[in-house]
């Protein structure tokens, strides 16, 4: 890792060293580009987040004026709440099943689209359409389809198969929500991969063909490594997204049955705006934040190292 850090700057900074004025200019460029965005992020994002962290040490009934300091008791309260522990477990299911699913399907479709010429625009448009719809509407459509006597069960029965409980089953529901999320994200994922694939120079493939490399080898040795920045982006964003699964759960199952689909963000939402326990909601937010932060740093470290190889 040390090596990487030293190596990278030296490669990129060789030129500015060649004239000092240029280097200064460049620093000016960098910082002037970053100034407004940084101020923006600090005011609009970071301060509110810190505020939220601050509240996690206070008992704040959202409707009241007082916020007495209570130390870590909000944290103790949520970790004693079996529902919260359950939501952490569920949230990990969302990530472990959802992220690979979304990436695999998105990449598969992007690769398939690359192979064809005719109707490419048509397919791309249609695959993207689900991403256009609002999450709330999609959740309702899925609920509508998966209802006990909805069209999905209608088709199953027509085919002579047993009707399924879908969202009413503690073992199935969580996966149907994941499917709904993936269904909606395929368009996004596909678009990102397509843009990534377009950036891979044809030259490399042609060179590999001359070397007699098969499809699979080309995929492993050219496509994947050159797609790495995009892959890394997709993994991190998909993980953050699945760790914050919320709207679909709220609108499809409201966390049930038996908390089998309840997610951390839904728990936070209910604590904050149904029970008005802002302190506990903030404590859960801090836990979620740390969870995402750890995972993201881990992903950046592990996957970034790979690209250097």
């Amino acid at each position, binding site marked *: 890792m040390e090596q990487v850090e030293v190596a990278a700057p030296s490669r990129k900074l060789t030129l500015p060293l060649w004239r000092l004025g240029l280097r200064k200019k460049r620093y000016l*460029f960098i910082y002037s580009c970053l100034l407004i965005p940084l101020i923006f992020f600090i005011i609009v994002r970071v301060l509110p987040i810190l505020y939220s962290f601050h509240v996690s040490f206070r008992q704040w009934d*959202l*409707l009241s*004026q007082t916020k007495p300091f209570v130390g870590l008791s909000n944290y103790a309260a949520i970790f004693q709440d079996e529902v919260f522990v359950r939501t952490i477990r569920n949230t990990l299911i969302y990530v472990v099943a959802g992220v690979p699913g979304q990436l695999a399907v998105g990449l598969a479709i992007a690769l398939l689209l690359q192979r064809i010429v005719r109707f490419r625009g048509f397919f791309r448009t249609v695959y993207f359409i689900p991403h256009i719809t609002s999450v709330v509407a999609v959740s309702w459509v899925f609920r509508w389809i998966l209802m*006990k*006597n909805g069209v999905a069960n209608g088709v199953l029965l027509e085919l002579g198969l047993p009707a399924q409980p879908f969202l009413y089953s*503690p073992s199935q529901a969580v996966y149907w929500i994941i499917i709904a999320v993936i269904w909606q994200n395929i368009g996004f994922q596909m678009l990102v991969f397509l843009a990534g694939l377009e950036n891979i120079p044809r030259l490399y493939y042609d060179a590999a063909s001359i070397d007699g490399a098969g499809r699979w080898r080309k995929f492993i040795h050219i496509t994947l490594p050159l797609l790495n920045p995009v892959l890394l982006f997709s993994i991190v964003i998909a993980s953050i997204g699945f760790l914050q699964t919320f709207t679909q759960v709220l609108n499809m199952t409201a966390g*049930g*049955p038996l908390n089998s689909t309840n997610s951390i963000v839904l728990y936070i939402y209910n604590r904050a*705006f149904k029970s008005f326990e802002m302190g506990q909601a903030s404590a859960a937010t801090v836990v979620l934040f740390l969870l995402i932060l750890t995972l993201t740093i881990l992903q950046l470290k592990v996957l970034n190292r790979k690209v250097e190889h």
Partner: protein
Amino acid sequence: MKKRSFYTLWATLLLGTVMLAGCAGANGGNKTDSSGPAKTSSYEKSNTTVSAEQPKEVTIEYWQYEFPAKVELINELIKQFEQEHPHITVKQTNFPYDQYNQKVATLVPAGKGPDVINLYYGWLPKYVSSGYLQPLPESEFPAADIEEHFFPFVETAKLGGKYYALPTGVRTLGLYYNKDLFTKAGLDPAKPPTTWEELVEYAKQLTERDSKGQFVIEGFAWEPGSQLHHWFRDGLLYQAGGQDTSEDRKRILWNESPAGLEAFKYLIDFAKEHKVGINGFYTDDANAFKTGHAAINVDGSYRLGSLRKDAPDLNYAIAPLPAYKNKSTQASFWANAIPSTVKDEKLAAATEFLKFLTSKGVQEQWVERIGELPAQKEVALQDKYVNDEFLGAFIAQLPDGRAHFFIDETQERTLFIEAVDQVLLTNVPIDKAFAELVAKTQKLYDDYWSKQGN
């Protein structure tokens, strides 16, 4: 040169942003801060005309959730009220039902708030314990008066010995039944079930399944997430001889006598033993009934409006809830309250408006337009309402109505649904699931009351 163009771009963007903010700010100022200038002007007036007799101009804000009929009627009522009180202007604001609490709660820390707010009675304890509401002025709303004129369950709005809110209209649960389906099943539509046993018998006869064993018609619409929780706590439990909470509302008494478990088992057995209904059938109970796929449903009087609108051809009637050892039904209401930040002339105006909203005349308009029952005994029990084809059954039950106490509406309902799901989906024995439900609900109450002690 290039750098300059870069900075020009930045500057333009910045300027644009600032200008946008500026315009927006000016706009917003006009719209949202209408109370601001009004306040200062009235303040100036009070300085200059200290001894003037005439009442000062006041604008108050009324918040309620979006329900088209209610919004419309309130707008008309405001006009009536403003004619009677020319110095008061009332502004109505509405929020979507699903996000009502969230919107209110977000606006409160920023100091935005109404002068009269419409709240579900089950939310009152939370709003009161946080100090958000002030008790209704005792001089204008004496407790003794309220208890004399209003139905007894309105007492749920009395917290710590003081009334914090009063309803215009109230609702009770009744037994909706589909007359055509009764006839089809060979039952007499003029004789709805009146006892627990009859309800089960009827439901069995009304249930219809296809060759694959799927429901075609539910004998009894069964949706724990809808009204069943209320039916259990205020209906079945008392009917079986039990009690919801202790007098001081600190202890859950469902498990004190066998009545609790009996009621819980009775409720679950519709789905588990008799298999006459299931959750999620045609979305939910109300839908299944409306589309003619459920023969009987326990639902509130507030459903009348949408039935009239969406299913004008549905041939149905309403009966009082079947009884067991006692008669009892669930009553509920949306009540109007005054936040504690409201003071002086605004408080006086808010009080006037509240008095107007709970008056007999308004309650009559309310029942006729909204279908919610008058909260005052003498208004509700008039012949024209008691004998009404649809309202009659609900009105007749008002004296038996109970509105159970809530610590946390969402959580209490969720716990109930969980207990039911445990029995149904994971085969947990009924008594075990029930004991757990009682313990968990009791814990909610303990937490709430221990905080009150501080």
